[in-house]
């Protein structure tokens, strides 16, 4: 079973969805079925985590079969230290998002949970795909369920948000498709081996000329839209705000990470020279995203929109860390990806359950609810602090490593970026103060505290946010060797360029 664990992880949710589609007629049964399936999927991830050989920088649990042999397309999957945490994050957040939707999703439940499971399969697949064709298919296939989740179960402006999300992402990724095809022919003409094998294509140098620059830009645009980096971030506030809670959790927790994962997996190894050339450009965009995201978050009146803009800011740290091209920067970036998934996912869940009770997300409608819902206020405070980057919590370690790494690479940028941490404290604490303290808004008298189910699904996230903050080695140990290999590859090219 361990040999095929990745295939099982990709196809189990699809089969489960198909099974639910065929045999489950009621919404409630489908809901429980989907939850059990997502828990099984999460449990299946555990042997992957424990059997992973941390001293091996290469791909593990590799599976390779011919798929479309006339085109050199294979079914080729594997995980390394960079992707394994993302797989874990995906299965964890999907299970939590499904449990978190039990009362939130009231209409057309069957379709919702089936869409969630199909989405999960595609997301896991994106992180483990080692064949460009497979990767691209899964990357795009995610769009359809996510589009439906936003469009059917979303808020008032859901149609606009769903279409915007879809078209933005698609517009970015079609150029990626051309880049993939161009790489296929280029790699084939250089080596005589026409293949979509990502590792084979990565191991070949493309000379750093116009070809490499264009390929880099095509990939970069596609990933930058997904991250999202400034100035292509405008789909994010709409999509996050209008999506149902589960949709927001998955969007912020997993989908955004695909952009930064793509930068790590494709842009750096395949187009290293262009990446190095564009390093200042990416760093500047990242810093703009950090500051701009934070400033815009500060003036938001909608809690969910505030968290959405904070994502732009936090993801700026990730891209900054990755483009520092050193061990601490990239490790910090990956850890920040993981932490941001946990913390922002949790914040969206918390906002969602508040919205379920009061049907408003406006900061001005709240005030003084800390006394009314003490458990909720406490948990919300934990994740607020996590988002700010308080030491002993995950957010701190990630941002700290990123800042250390980027200070070595471009100290000016790091200094400006560090101010983003302060801004984060301003907008998060100010929001917390206006919602939970100050004078009590009497319109909220039937506000009830969190119930057992809600505490249960938030609990794993609380544990993880402290775990990554206090003993990050559990998580960083997975990535040391893979990141080291990547950094050495980039640095050797950098040395050769000088």
């Amino acid at each position, binding site marked *: 079973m361990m040999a095929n664990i990745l295939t099982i992880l990709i196809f189990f949710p699809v089969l489960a969805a198909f099974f639910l589609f065929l045999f489950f007629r009621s919404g409630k049964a489908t809901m429980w079925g989907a939850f059990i399936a997502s828990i099984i999927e999460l449990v299946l991830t555990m042997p992957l985590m424990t059997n992973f050989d941390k001293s091996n920088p290469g791909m593990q649990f590799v599976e390779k079969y011919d*798929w*479309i*042999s*006339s*085109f050199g397309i294979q079914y080729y999957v594997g995980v390394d230290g960079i992707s394994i945490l993302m797989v874990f994050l995906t299965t964890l957040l999907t299970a939590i998002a499904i449990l978190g939707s039990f009362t939130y999703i009231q209409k*057309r439940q069957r*379709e919702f949970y089936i869409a969630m499971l199909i989405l999960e399969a595609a997301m896991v697949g994106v992180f483990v795909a080692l064949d460009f*064709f497979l990767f*691209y*298919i*899964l990357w*795009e*296939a995610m*769009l*359809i369920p996510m*589009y*439906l989740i936003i*469009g*059917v179960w979303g808020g008032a402006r*859901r*149609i606009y948000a*769903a*279409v915007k999300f*879809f*078209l933005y992402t*698609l*517009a970015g990724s*079609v*150029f990626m*498709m*051309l880049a993939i*095809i*161009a790489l*296929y*022919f280029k790699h084939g003409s250089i080596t005589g081996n026409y293949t979509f094998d990502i590792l084979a294509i990565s191991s070949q140098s493309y000379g750093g000329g116009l070809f490499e620059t264009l390929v880099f830009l095509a990939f970069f645009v596609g990933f930058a839209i997904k991250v999202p980096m400034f100035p292509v971030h405008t789909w994010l506030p709409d999509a996050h705000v209008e999506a149902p809670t589960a949709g927001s959790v998955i969007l912020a927790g997993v989908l955004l990470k695909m952009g930064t994962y793509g930068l790590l997996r494709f842009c750096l190894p395949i187009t290293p020279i262009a990446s190095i050339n564009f390093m200042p450009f990416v760093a500047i965009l990242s810093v703009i995203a950090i500051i701009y995201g934070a400033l815009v978050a500060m003036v938001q009146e909608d809690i969910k929109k505030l968290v959405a803009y904070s994502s732009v800011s936090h993801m700026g740290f990730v891209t900054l860390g990755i483009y520092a091209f050193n061990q601490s920067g990239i490790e910090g970036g990956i850890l920040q990806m993981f932490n941001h998934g946990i913390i922002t996912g949790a914040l969206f869940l918390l906002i969602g359950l508040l919205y379920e009770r009061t049907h408003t997300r406006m900061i001005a409608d709240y005030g003084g609810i800390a006394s009314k819902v003490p458990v909720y206020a406490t948990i919300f405070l934990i994740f607020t602090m996590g988002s700010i980057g308080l030491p002993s919590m995950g957010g701190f370690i990630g941002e700290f490593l990123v800042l250390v790494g980027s200070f070595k690479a471009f100290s000016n940028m790091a200094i400006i970026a560090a101010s983003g941490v302060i801004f984060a404290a301003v907008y998060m604490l100010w929001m917390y103060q206006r919602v939970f303290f100050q004078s009590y808004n009497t319109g909220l008298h039937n506000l009830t505290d969190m119930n057992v189910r809600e505490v249960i699904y938030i609990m794993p996230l609380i544990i993880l946010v402290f775990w990554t903050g206090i003993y990050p080695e559990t998580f960083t140990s997975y990535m040391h060797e893979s990141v080291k290999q990547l950094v050495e590859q980039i640095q050797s090219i950098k040395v050769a360029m000088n």
Partner: protein
Amino acid sequence: MGQSIVSILPEILMTIFGLMLIVIDVMSKDEKKSGVGYFGIAFILLTLLASVPVGGFKIVGFDQMLVWDSYAYAFFIVFAIAYILTTLGSVDYLKANGINKGEYYTILYFSIIGMMFMVSATDLSVLYLGLETMAIAMYIMAGFNKKDKRSNEAGIKYFIIGAFSSGILLYGLTYVYGYTGSTKYSVIAEMLRTNGVENLNIKLGLVMMLAGFAFKISAVPFHMWAPDVYSGAPTPVTGFMTVAPKAAAFGALIRFVMVALEPASVQWQLFFSILAVLTMTYGNLVAIAQNNVKRMLAYSAISHAGYMLIGLVAANDLGYKAIALYMIIYGFMNIGAFTILGQLKNKGIIDDERLESFAGLSKKHPLASLAMLIFMFSLAGIPPLAGFVGKFYIFSAAIKSGLVWLAIVGVVNSAIACYYYMRVTIYMYFKEAEYDASIEMKPASSIATFIAVVFVLLIGVFPSFFINIVKMMIV
């Protein structure tokens, strides 16, 4: 002589079966006319099986007038798919509209014989005969709904403009013949190779011929007939017309330009690359503005012709294989969409095919809506659906020939196109019903839709089978 007979054996078989079809039509009762269609399906399947190609075979017949090879066979598969799905999708439509006539299936069937001659032709006279056989059948089909004014209009319009374009094609053909002294592709190529294409007469002749072809594939600016004819014709016929005659025209055009015009490839590549850009862009931009789904799909059909032209401009073996594969895939997804559209009935005030009729349909008809969603996303080229595989091949062909700019225009267009395909899904899934609309899926159209959905999903995930079919193709 023996070989000549073998080279048209599939057509002979089709014709004999076609004559039998007429007899069956005469013998069957008025309310049992659908049986003619089922027999037609059986006959086409029999011919398809009987003429299965063995390896990369090529049978030249009648002193190089036509050839039966794996290339012609691949296009025959497209025609067969189009016929089978259209027939199944028509049965209920014809009954509902009171035009359940046996000749519907027979004429549809005979048009395919014309198409088969078109794609096997290696001689201008055979090409023209095949083209006219197909075209006359299609004029009748477009106006088949006699009681409907718009169908009549479509028939007349198609006939007049079609006859006009055939005339232009024929006129160009005479110039080519006059200049080269032969109607055979190989001789024309030889003449062009030695004498070049600088002579005004041959230029004029070729431009008129290519314009005639451009009419048939509805390439902008020769597309004027398409939107009205496509939206006026009976819905299943429109589905057929956007696939089979277009595939035939592409099949004939590819053979003509790759064999006869091989020495002038720089010139026709330029000609068609301009047409490709215009066709994609115009088709997509105008489709966005449509509120009638049938008309929207008509414009989308124009834009798809533009994508396929990219494969032609690429002028490599991957390119025409991509076009054949694209046609197969397009046949499944587009005829599938038209089948559902044909069954959509709106008891309200507005036209059946209006976008508003789709509002909220996913609640009332979850399965039919899911099928429509799959067709729409497949047409938009979203993986893991078949439409993506087709586009992927087309763009690969372009990049292989170094036509990156054309591929970029293509992908930008397919991103734009997403919007109007999505509008159908927006209405079906995100909006509440405004009118009392329903999709009445009877057994025959359900089977057609089911087959189409299965193949759209299957080709999307396991395209190898159909890729192997087109892989054997050699012009």
